């Protein structure tokens, strides 16, 4: 079946249709249902691999490929505009890669209401892929909100004792966080209409808008709150530990591995993309918050006794790295951040899976309950150690590449700077001395790496090599085939990214560079030409330089 012409539509809608179909499979045939769920999501994964094939049906404009652009609600200027570039490509693949794994693994633990679980997971997949590939802001918002409902159900229905509280908290945080974004989108569209006479929600059209700094700040903040809740950035992270602790293993994996990425992705694509000047203004603040997140997440994780909470706080820490890489806005920082998004998806997904394995056997997640498991479950211990290495960024694993790029990226960033000793000149302009503070952040982040290594290794030491005090631990079965099936692809990916990063970066770097080219061009244009009212930028600014060759390594990385 040649689906590549509508490949993105297939990726977005096929899971939703599969979810609908699932509802009609009788409960008496659970095997059919499971086979259908795994089969359809595997099929989708197969389809999504086409995204890697060259540039079939691509439109080279602005580096977006597999473009589908149709009028949807013409009178409001809303379009059905889907496309991927190197930034979203790997995130889509991450989604399609993890969904079948998660579904398959979850069948081991979720016995009741499998039908609802499958339907919710597939619907969630639809919404997440949709949000990654939408270039129309209305469409993006639709998918963004649509994600909430299935995730809410997954946490609330299949979760633990306090699941309802966690689910409602999750829903309300994210729902309330994104209403400001809706307002900001509408405000931009309204200004666009005022300037051009047409409504458009299209990202590429709205890129032409430039705002006075004061307006841009508000708009950026409205977007930033929505994304920061999702990431979650310190101090808006409080829903995450609750949601993770209560969610079922499958929900935790998807939540951590994919859904949080939507926040960072949104920051990059829409927050930084649309508001270069405001993001420049707020860049150091975001970087500080990111560093606080890295250290705070790591330190709190250190103190946790609940395995899942530990992993959840480590997520806060890891996503701090991603945010730091994004705020650096250097080619290395950006591609490191994107790589780190994928890495975090893989290794945290694997960690949650492993925690789930332990929980299934002992029905507790208290770290103190365990000890000396290396003898009882040698394979489990081996896998766990490998995943831990990836999570703390040992060379040879995926985590190393990402963290290294982020740290070098922020070290060399000349956009992270503070101004001091400002003087008002004769003509009223302000002259300031500027100091680059990128190295400071790089140092803080490196410190975070160390703390992360310490607490993860401490846990490994306690759980696997410490004395086994609890007799219940003496006869735990090792990994079963189902669990192996889930873990092997993840392990493979850990080493694939770790050993062959060039393959991945070949697709990420050009996209980052063209993104930065547009970003910097817009930033300079806006800074040079501050006005009282919104105005339109020259369209030539938005055309990135011709992309570097597909294999050619991008400059600027070590």
């Amino acid at each position, binding site marked *: 079946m040649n689906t590549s012409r509508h490949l993105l539509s297939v990726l977005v809608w096929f899971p939703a249709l599969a979810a609908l179909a699932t509802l009609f499979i009788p409960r008496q045939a659970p095997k059919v249902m499971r086979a259908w769920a795994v089969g359809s999501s595997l099929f989708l994964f197969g389809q999504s691999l086409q995204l890697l094939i060259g540039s079939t049906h691509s439109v080279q404009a602005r580096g977006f490929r597999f473009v589908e652009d149709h009028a949807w609600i013409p009178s409001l200027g809303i379009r059905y505009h889907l496309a991927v570039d190197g930034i979203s490509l790997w995130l889509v693949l991450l989604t399609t890669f993890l969904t079948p794994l998660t579904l398959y693994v979850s069948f081991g633990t979720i016995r009741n209401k499998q039908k609802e679980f499958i339907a919710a997971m597939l619907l969630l997949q639809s919404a997440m892929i949709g949000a990654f590939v939408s270039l129309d802001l209305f469409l993006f918002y639709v998918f963004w909100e649509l994600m909430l409902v299935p995730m809410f159900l997954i946490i609330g229905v299949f979760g633990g004792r306090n699941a309802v509280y966690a689910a409602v908290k999750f829903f309300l945080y994210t729902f309330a966080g994104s209403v400001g974004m809706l307002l900001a989108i509408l405000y931009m569209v*309204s200004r666009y209409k005022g300037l051009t006479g047409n409504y458009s929600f299209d990202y590429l059209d709205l890129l032409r808008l430039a705002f006075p700094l004061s307006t841009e700040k508000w708009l950026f903040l409205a977007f930033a709150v929505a994304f920061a809740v999702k990431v979650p950035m310190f101090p808006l992270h409080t829903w995450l530990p609750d949601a993770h602790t209560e969610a079922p293993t499958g929900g935790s994996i998807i939540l951590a591995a994919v859904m949080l990425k939507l926040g960072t992705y949104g920051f990059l694509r829409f927050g930084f993309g649309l508001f270069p000047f405001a993001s420049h203004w707020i860049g150091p603040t975001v970087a500080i918050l990111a560093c606080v997140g890295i250290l705070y997440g790591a330190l709190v994780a250190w103190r946790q006794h609940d395995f899942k909470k530990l992993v959840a706080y480590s997520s806060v820490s890891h996503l701090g790295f991603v945010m730091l890489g994004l705020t650096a806005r250097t080619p290395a920082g950006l591609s490191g951040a994107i790589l780190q998004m994928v890495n975090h998806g893989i290794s945290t997904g694997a960690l949650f899976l492993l925690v789930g394995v332990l929980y299934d056997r002992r029905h507790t997640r208290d770290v103190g309950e365990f000890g000396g498991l290396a003898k009882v479950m040698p394979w489990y211990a081996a896998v766990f150690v490998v995943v831990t290495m990836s999570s703390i960024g040992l060379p040879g694993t995926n985590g190393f590449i990402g963290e290294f790029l982020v740290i070098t990226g922020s070290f060399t960033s000349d956009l992270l700077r503070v101004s001091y000793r400002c003087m008002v000149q004769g003509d009223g302009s302000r002259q300031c001395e500027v100091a680059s503070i990128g190295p400071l952040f790089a140092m803080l982040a490196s410190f975070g790496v160390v703390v992360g290594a310490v607490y993860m290794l401490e846990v490994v030491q306690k759980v696997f090599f410490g004395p086994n005090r609890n007799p219940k631990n003496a006869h735990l079965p090792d990994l079963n085939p189902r669990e192996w099936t889930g873990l092997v692809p993840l392990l493979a990916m850990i080493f694939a990214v770790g050993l062959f990063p060039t393959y991945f970066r070949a697709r990420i770097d050009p996209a980052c560079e063209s993104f930065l080219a547009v970003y910097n061009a817009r930033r300079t244009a806006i800074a040079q030409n501050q006005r009282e009212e919104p105005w339109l930028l020259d369209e030539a600014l938005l055309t990135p330089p011709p992309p570097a060759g597909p294999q050619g390594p991008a400059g600027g990385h070590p």
Partner: protein
Amino acid sequence: MIQTLAPLAPILLMAFGAVALMLIDAFQDEEGGLAMPAALVHFVAGSTALLLWKRGLPLDSGLLHGYLVIDKTSLFLDAVIGLGGGLASLLAGGYLHEHKLERGEYYPLLGFASCGAMMLVSASDTLMLFVALETMSLGVYAMTGYRRTSARALEAALKYFLLGSFAAALLLAGAALLYTVTGHTDFAGIAQALHPTGEQPPDPFLVDKARISILAMLLILAALAFKVGAVPFHMWVPDTYEGAPTSTTAYMSVVVKTAAFGVFLRLMLTVFGDAGSASSAAGWPALMAWVAVLTMTVGNLAALVQTSVKRMLAYSSIAHAGYLLVGVVLAPRGGGVGAVAVASVLFYLLAYTVSNVGAFGALMLAGRRGAEAVSFDDLAGLGKRHPWAAFALTFFLLSLTGVPPTAGFFGKFYIVRTALDSGLGLLAAIVVVNSAVSAYYYLGVIVKMFMKDPAPGATRAQPMASGTIFFTLVGAALGVLYLGLLPERVLSLALAAAERAAP
């Protein structure tokens, strides 16, 4: 003859249909079974309105004498009323049968009320407005008190009746004062007399007339605010919605609201649509903006603390009236904004109709006679007992919350966009913040259904089986999805309908 009566076709069909229902009821041996014919009458009347639209204007045959205006706005609203009334009668078919209330009078009453509602959205004369309003209201009063052995139902009917009649008297007083100063009862004549164009002989009573017309406007506004359930005239809504049979509540929440907003728009835009009274700084829109903010806030906050689902839905309907009022506030603006604002109200009314009928229908489906779904606790564990009913209720509540891609989301989106486009950022922000608040109580229902088990020994709703309700829900769900995913067609209809209404 046909030509003269053609513009009145939807209304006449509704009236004759109601009479026919009455006759069928009189001559059939056993009671009940009229839901299908009643729904048919509604759907036929509604689609006739759309046919008339297609046939084109002008639609005045000289018979109307300015009492009624058949224009695209009224035809659009006729179609909405036909749809809402039809769906509500189908719901009634399942509900009344289940609760052994199946007596023949219900459907003729429903038909007469819909006939009044259709007249109301066409009314362009205060006399017609009053008679149509009473026709609709009398039918609904009776439908509210229809369960005669229930003290709650009669209490609801008594309250609704007394307050409704009081509001009607206020409206009438306003109309009489307008007649006093203008000598006209038709909207256009009143507007012309209040704000004459061209050279006029000096009028010694100009100041008096202006004062009296302001008094009249306030009286009329109060009465209309009562009918749409706006704060501070909202007190009847929760009591009436809770006490009435659920099928009546469903009907009331969609048809009465649609008709009330329709006449609200027409009256305020024609009679008080001049630059002075409709000035957004000092005229009625400024007043209504405050009312809108209060209405949605009070409605949402009160809904947060309810224990009865029906009562929660009643307060939420007050909140929705607040969102709709935002559109009304913007309607008198010129430069195309007004038309878009009216269109957003029209679209919202349609979206609200399908969502709310669905929500009440799912609530009916969730309970059977003697084990009705009344409180949140009754719904605990419904997801297990009857996943389809729970699923349906979830779906429609999400639409009411405004989660995409549903009709409710798009309706709200459209209103917020209009508000932002006309520079009312604060009002738009209040709407979205309110809808975020509303998510909490709608979620409460979903949480109860899927994530809680009933306490041992507690009452719980036992789902009923009803094909009519099931198919109504499927229809409403399709409508919700259609309006949410492919709103373009309806949107352009609403815009076309709004063009003539807005200044």
